[in-house]
């Protein structure tokens, strides 16, 4: 070590602290993760494959992908628009707007689902109107999408607002002064500057969209093969004491989480300076 001993903790204390950190993360992170994998494979890989290729499981995978593929792009467009408005202009009410955008983060997932039941459910504000036109939102895919969009609402915006605020608007003004149109400026100057921030936000948004449980659970109705996303399928199987199948589907989701963390670490490592405004 470059520093004299008295500018750091005694070696023994260092080892103790590292030990505590390792034990805590081992107990809270690695052990549960390991438990998922062990449980998923306890009847062998054949049982695992059978569980994840069973029709209801495949339907759950397809539904999860479908919901995420709608919710994430919607929040991407919103996130970029919101960050553009907030970072490039000064206007009254900006602080309030930022707070409102972050609001879904602190709302309970259950409440996030409940609001749409109250709006579009059979007893909801628009329930009768929708029923008379045979439009299904609750207990159907649109409800799942709405709940997912609500829950993942702030992800992209939250990532981009500090980044774009830090970058300011000089480069955009330069492009305009050189004769570029507004859209050209956006595509050719702004977007290249924020692409890794966008990617980072989309990554986290997607992980949450695919893994969301509470909000979609309220609006789903748990119809197997139809409105069960993967996390909901895990619950159904688990409650039927079909543990191997439950953990098999759960292991897919755990794999998604690990891939997300890997990509996230990679982005932070390779492009950390471009994401630096995060904190």
């Amino acid at each position, binding site marked *: 070590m470059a520093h004299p001993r008295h500018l750091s903790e005694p070696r023994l204390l260092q080892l103790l*602290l590292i030990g505590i950190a390792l034990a805590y993360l081992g107990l809270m992170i690695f052990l549960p993760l390991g438990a998922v994998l062990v449980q998923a494979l306890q009847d062998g890989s054949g049982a695992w494959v059978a569980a994840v290729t069973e029709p209801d499981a495949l339907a759950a995978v397809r539904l999860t992908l479908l919901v995420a593929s709608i919710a994430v792009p919607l929040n991407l467009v919103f996130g970029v*628009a919101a960050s553009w408005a907030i970072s490039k202009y000064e*206007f009254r009410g900006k602080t309030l707007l930022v707070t409102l955008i972050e609001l879904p983060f602190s*709302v309970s997932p259950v409440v996030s689902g*409940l609001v749409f039941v109250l709006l579009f459910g059979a007893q909801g504000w628009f329930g009768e109107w929708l029923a008379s036109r045979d439009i299904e939102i609750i207990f159907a895919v649109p409800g799942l999408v709405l709940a997912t969009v609500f829950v993942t609402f702030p992800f992209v915006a939250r990532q981009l607002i500090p980044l774009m605020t830090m970058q300011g608007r000089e480069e955009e003004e330069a492009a305009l002064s050189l004769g570029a149109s507004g859209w050209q400026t956006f595509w050719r100057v702004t977007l290249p500057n924020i692409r890794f921030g966008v990617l980072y936000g989309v990554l986290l948004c997607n992980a949450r969209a695919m893994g969301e449980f509470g909000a979609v659970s309220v609006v789903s109705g748990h119809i197997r093969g139809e409105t069960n996303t993967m*996390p909901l399928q895990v619950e159904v199987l688990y409650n039927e004491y079909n543990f191997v199948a439950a*953990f098999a589907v759960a292991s897919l989701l755990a794999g998604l989480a690990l891939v997300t*963390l890997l990509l996230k670490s990679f982005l932070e490592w390779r492009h950390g300076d471009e994401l630096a405004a995060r904190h």
Partner: protein
Amino acid sequence: MLKVRSSRPVLPGFRLSLGITLFWLSVIVLVPLSAVFAKSATGGWDGFVAAALSERALASYRLTFGAALLGAAINCVFGLIVAWVLVRYDFPGKRALGAAVDLPFALPTAVAGIALTTLYADTGLLGRPLAALGLPVAYQPAGVVLALTFIGLPFVVRTVEPVLAEVAHETEEAATTLGATRLQTMARVIFPTLLPALATGFALAFARGAGEYGSVIFIAGNMPFRSEIAPLLIVTQLEEYDFAGAASIAVVMLLVSVAMLLVLNMLQHWQRRKG
């Protein structure tokens, strides 16, 4: 109300981007949330109070907020140690450990719920010895605390880490040259600097924990008055078609969320002022 302040020529796209933002915010967040308030009022003030402050609801708040506070407190202690170790020391596997801290952000809560339940059930790897010691975790309020501790783990680490990394080395050296022991430097110079970040991490973990559902319901046991969290009570009432009742409890939860947002804004202000 929303008007560009600057008078010099600005970038195009203000109306469009702000328009999209406000429209989407209203459709997805504001209108739906107002539905909760409207629904909770359909039974009048008495109906609201009867639903939101029933014995069962009060018991669920005590458990939900109590367990969230306890989980956040546990994470303050261990999160601080983890952040310290990650910033200050070098050891093999440090990078992987740092990435793993974010797992509770990325792992779907239902997966966390069944994994923790399996480990801590009376037949589980950790549950069996704990039960033998007379400390059952699963299907007890302790299980709720465990799940919320898991969910809140990244917050304290991630808020404290950057601040700890920025504590100027000079400041610590200054304390040394002024005669402070290492312990005095840690307690009187470093710790106070971390306090706003620590409080922010605590508040974030608490806010997240108070609303958490997926990881809790598997391990909690869900006994009314004993191990039933408030979000679950909302779901139960919804399944019984008591929409006003569900909305009333949701209003209480929302008010707590908004209060936490205000607290967090104040904490951020505090942190910035100190910086």
